[in-house]
């Protein structure tokens, strides 16, 4: 206690601890995690039933429908991201911790992506089959969704952090996030369409990757700032 330079808890250790805790909580309440996945699967399987079995129509609309469904599923899962931490006071304990809040926020987002983003990427090929998507396109579909869900997780976390203090901030969250998510949707769906047509897909993938890199490096600070404002 009389040390002149007291050690500080490690940045990585704090981040991993938050991620592990949230994964563990998700494990104890699997219903919350499965909700977005269920939504994604429902939309993607109901759509072909509604538009009819015409092969051309399914192939044409497949990438767009899968991408819209994934985007909405991610939005659905974002609402509750910070709410329980806010309500039980553990968010305040994180705010007064010496570990930078940006690192803790990144830990929370990692856990969020692993529980809501990654499952969507994994089931996407199965749902792609209902749209008669050829096997060669599956890789591109998964890659675009992989990059897209990472960006959406982080982007949505900023919105969730801003609206955590408001009750029923759902509509506001969507309004905040959707304009920024539009490029992801446009490039994501288009790249998959191009792949299905046998065109070059590198451009779209580069764009999605650049977006992901940008947001991974900037979003943690924005989330931390938003959490501080919300918690005043």
């Amino acid at each position: 206690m009389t040390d002149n330079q007291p050690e500080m808890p490690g940045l990585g250790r704090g981040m991993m601890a938050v991620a592990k805790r949230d994964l563990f909580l998700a494990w104890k309440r699997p219903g919350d995690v499965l909700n977005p996945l269920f939504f994604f699967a429902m939309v993607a399987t109901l759509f072909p039933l509604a538009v009819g079995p015409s092969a051309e129509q399914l192939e044409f609309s497949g990438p767009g429908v899968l991408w819209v469904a994934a985007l909405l599923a991610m939005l659905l899962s974002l609402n509750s991201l910070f709410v329980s931490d806010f309500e039980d006071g553990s968010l305040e304990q994180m705010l007064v911790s010496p570990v930078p809040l940006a690192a803790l926020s990144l830990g929370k987002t990692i856990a969020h992506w692993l529980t809501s983003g990654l499952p969507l990427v994994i089931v996407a090929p199965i749902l792609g089959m209902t749209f008669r998507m050829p096997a060669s396109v599956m890789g591109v579909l998964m890659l675009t969704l992989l990059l897209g869900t990472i960006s959406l997780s982080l982007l949505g976390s900023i919105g969730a952090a801003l609206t955590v203090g408001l009750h029923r901030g759902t509509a506001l969250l969507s309004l905040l996030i959707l304009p920024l998510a539009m490029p992801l949707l446009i490039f994501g769906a288009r790249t998959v369409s191009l792949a299905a047509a046998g065109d070059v897909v590198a451009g779209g993938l580069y764009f999605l990757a650049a977006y992901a890199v940008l947001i991974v490096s900037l979003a943690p600070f924005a989330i931390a700032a938003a959490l501080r404002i919300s918690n005043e």
Partner: protein
Amino acid sequence: MTAKLTADSLTLFRGERCLFENLSFALNPGELLLLEGCNGSGKTSLIRAIAGLIELETGEIYWDEQPVRRQRQVFNNELVWMAHRVGFKADLSLVENLRFESALRRDSRHDLDDILTRLNINRLKRLPVRSLSAGQQRRVALARMLMSAATLWMMDEPVTNLDREGRSLVMTLVSEHLARGGMVIMAAHQDIQIDFPVHTIQLQ
């Protein structure tokens, strides 16, 4: 000599209402700062402002003669906070919660079992926090303070929901902490009997 923790003319508004104006205090190791006042007088707001959760209208808080806002991490490293809401995950057990917490702050390297036995909650350690009573949850929050090596304890009405034995336990722990050279800021309704220097701030 200047004090370890100094506050210089703090002013805080909540909405239109001025909670305190030009409030100054100084606190040294081994001293207790007691915040008194009726409900809604701003005790919690003052504590939250010291912890950096609320922006002050005017004034500056100094730790080791340096403004806290320039060394937030250093200050937070010396700080552990017991709030109204205990801040534990209801689905996780007491031990899981405390393990997680220990990654967030400097560890005092006390044995967890010893701490839990001392607080009389060792037999509850496998139960999820949601199944504990309010008083038992306060005891877990006390365990968080004992597990951290922080110098400054900030306690917002620490004896709420505690039984008589728990209340005297809080005072014993506070005395021990002060004897080690720690500092305590406490908001309380009750009178505090303690053999250490006590500064009192009466909030209107």
